[in-house]
């Protein structure tokens, strides 16, 4: 045994590997998706994780359906009537639909789904409260059901198109049990469950009897990859076809686009960002100061340079897909001169100090804030940035009103209804509103919650948006894009803003 010969062995082994090349996994008719998180359960009532929906939207259907265009349409219900001033909704169900285990879909399945969601099993999970406006579900006949509501819920129809309202198979769950269902999901959607390995991935295949026609793909695989660099390496190696949000950092976009067979597809997403003001303490109590601070920062330039254009400016705390969005509202223009004048008028001396609180887990947002601080410096305000651990900031600093003059708020709800944001941000006593108490705004916020007249409700939501912009409760920054990275062999992919992938029409070359 000679000492120096040993190291040669592994090197030779490595050289030999060229023969057993690890070829790409991209098979015909199979799409491989990289998703950053394993939700642990595929039962609709167990989680409220975005990456649950990126998979499960292919397995299940709701009574209604909202696709990537944000428009609400029929799902398992072909039509519906809103009755009794919005306290009863009658759904007419689609006929000839079967679950992936062969069980027929009918009114009893709808009743079972909502009894389960609103019963003790559902109460353990996070979905329950989203649907607790529903008092009971009554079977009228095999294909007609009535939803009786405790009070009108203007967002209910949207909510029936996703997450907890996905229709589940009664016989299957009763026979196999809850635990089995968690890891062996069955629905009426275009793809059928094949296998699931916790923390590794889930495999689906086309469901031949899908009511909307068999999907174009034969197989659909999801792999759970948390690290962005790893997901992109898999994409570059041709073993993954699609990387879904929130994975791709802005800094990696150019790398992806420089590969001939890869591209980035992005659409305005759900998340909007703002630096909200502490309106109870410090110089930001003064409306003029708040307006000056907003004017002093060139938000368009920040979007172009730091965010590589992967965001759009906003004029209220919502994106253009949100119900309540008013296209006639324009963002406050960048105007440092006017900002200085307003500050002088408010008696703020050059060199005034403010503190900006942000979460410590987002490098890009830190850069954005460094830019904001340097803009503020130019109008004579010294801003210090204070990063907090995210959970600590969300559970203590903001709700208990311990923030500096400005603090980060990132927000986005999948229902895309401004009520979801506005009520929690602006109503007195809400967790995210530690500083403001405004009876007029409270009344506006409450009034739209019981209205079923869609146009009137939209008007009130737009009024709330204008009211909050006039009072400068926050420096509105931008609506971030949802960024997908994709292999060009994938055809007909339409990027959804909310990560709820439905890949029925997608095919691969």
């Amino acid at each position: 045994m000679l000492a120096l010969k040993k190291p040669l062995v592994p090197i030779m082994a490595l050289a030999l590997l060229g023969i057993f090349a690890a070829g790409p996994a991209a098979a015909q008719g199979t799409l491989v998706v990289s998703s950053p998180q394993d939700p642990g359960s595929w039962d609709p009532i167990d989680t409220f994780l975005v990456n649950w929906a990126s998979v499960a939207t292919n397995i299940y259907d709701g009574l209604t359906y909202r696709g990537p265009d944000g428009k609400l349409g029929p799902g398992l219900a072909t039509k519906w009537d809103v009755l009794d001033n919005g306290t009863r909704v009658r759904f007419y169900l689609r006929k000839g639909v079967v679950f992936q285990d062969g069980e027929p879909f009918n009114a009893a399945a709808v009743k079972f789904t909502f009894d389960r969601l609103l019963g003790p099993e559902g109460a353990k999970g996070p979905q329950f409260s989203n649907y607790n406006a529903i008092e009971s579900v009554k079977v009228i006949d095999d294909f007609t059901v009535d939803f009786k509501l405790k009070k009108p819920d203007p967002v209910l129809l949207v909510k029936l198109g996703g997450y907890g309202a996905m229709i589940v198979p009664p016989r299957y769950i009763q026979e196999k049990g809850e635990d089995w269902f968690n890891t062996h999901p069955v629905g009426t959607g275009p793809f059928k469950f094949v296998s699931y390995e916790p923390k590794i991935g889930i495999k689906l295949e086309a469901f031949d009897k899908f009511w909307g026609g068999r999907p174009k793909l034969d197989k659909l695989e999801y792999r759970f990859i948390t690290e962005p660099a790893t997901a992109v390496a898999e994409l570059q190696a041709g073993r993954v076809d699609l990387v879904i949000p929130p994975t791709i950092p802005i800094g990696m976009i150019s790398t992806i686009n420089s590969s001939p067979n890869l591209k980035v597809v992005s659409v305005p997403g759900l998340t909007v960002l703002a630096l909200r003001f502490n309106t109870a303490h410090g110089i930001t109590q003064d409306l003029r100061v708040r307006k000056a601070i907003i004017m002093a920062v060139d938000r368009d330039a920040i979007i172009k340079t730091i965010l590589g254009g992967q965001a759009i400016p906003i004029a209220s705390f919502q994106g253009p897909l949100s119900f309540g969005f008013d296209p006639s509202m324009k963002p406050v223009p960048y105007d440092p001169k006017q900002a200085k004048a307003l500050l002088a008028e408010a008696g703020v001396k050059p060199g005034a100090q403010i503190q900006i609180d942000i979460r410590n887990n987002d490098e890009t947002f830190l850069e954005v804030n460094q830019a904001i601080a340097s803009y503020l410096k130019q109008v004579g305000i010294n801003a210090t940035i204070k990063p907090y651990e995210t959970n600590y900031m969300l559970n203590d600093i903001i709700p208990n009103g311990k923030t500096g003059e400005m603090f980060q708020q990132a927000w986005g709800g999948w229902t895309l209804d401004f009520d979801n944001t506005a009520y929690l941000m602006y109503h007195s006593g809400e967790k995210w509103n530690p500083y403001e108490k405004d009876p007029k705004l409270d009344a506006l916020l409450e009034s739209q919650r019981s209205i079923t007249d869609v146009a009137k409700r939209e008007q009130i939501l737009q009024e709330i948006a204008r009211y909050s912009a006039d009072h400068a409760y926050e420096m509105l920054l931008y609506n971030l894009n949802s960024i997908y990275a994709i292999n060009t062999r994938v055809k007909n992919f339409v990027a959804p803003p909310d990560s709820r992938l439905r890949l029925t029409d997608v095919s691969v070359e």
Partner: protein
Amino acid sequence: MVKFLAQRVILSLFVVLAVTLIVAFAIRLTGDPALMLTQGAGSITEADLARIRAALGLNQPFFVQYANFLKGFITLDLGKSFLGGTPVATLVGKALPATLLLALSSLALSIILSIPLGIAAAVKKGKWADQAIRVLSLLGLSFPNFWLAMMMVLLFSITLRWLPPSGMEGILSFIMPTLTMGIILTATNVRLVRTTMLETLQSQFVMVARAKGLSERVVLYKHALRNGAIPLITYFGLQFGGLLGGIVVVERVFNWPGMGTLAFDAVAARDYPVLQSVICILSLLIVGVNLLVDIAYGIVDPRIRRD
């Protein structure tokens, strides 16, 4: 020896207990699992959060929760993950072998490489072979392991397409993670073997062995290495503990479905049952290995056994 071992076992158990207590306490300071479960919701009320917390058993006092965990752990019932309710035993049952395989293969690679290289460097002290080995070792030490991992992925997965960039599927997927950890371990170990051997080679018994006319191979491997092995065994043992800690980064880069990935995800999701079990098992392993090192000492060196 028996008394010594008994003392060590008690001390080790105390260490494990302290580690799990600190982890259980610390993770509870950092945030609310109920909030993490509802990230897609947007609107969620305090009442909802309270209901979810109650379902997860988080409404009980801290020490009750901790005692329940310990009781469960001792009776081998590790509970269920907060994320989706998968039994923790199922998750650990898959992750632990993955991590151990990776750690052992890396350690084995480093031992296979560093012993002959270290001996060669010691024997050829000051010559070009020694210089080359020392420079290579310095290079190996200077690489951050995640960087090394990414460079390998770039070369072997993206450019050459020989190896899968991530995951644990088949023998090929072991190569890059093992090399990443193994190379860095080797860089340290080569220096250690070299120093140890240099000391041993100057001992009188080596001179005696040579004077007896024994072949150089027998002198090096039978006499010098066996005596020099004592500090090496301690070090490799301790290194195994460090390896389990340092594996998190490598597992993450290679999306390796091991304990590091499990712990990382559990911290991010505030999945207390998973995190507590992972930490408890890893600390048991680390103190267990240290105990074994003590025992191995006695086997290699009879002088210790007699004390």
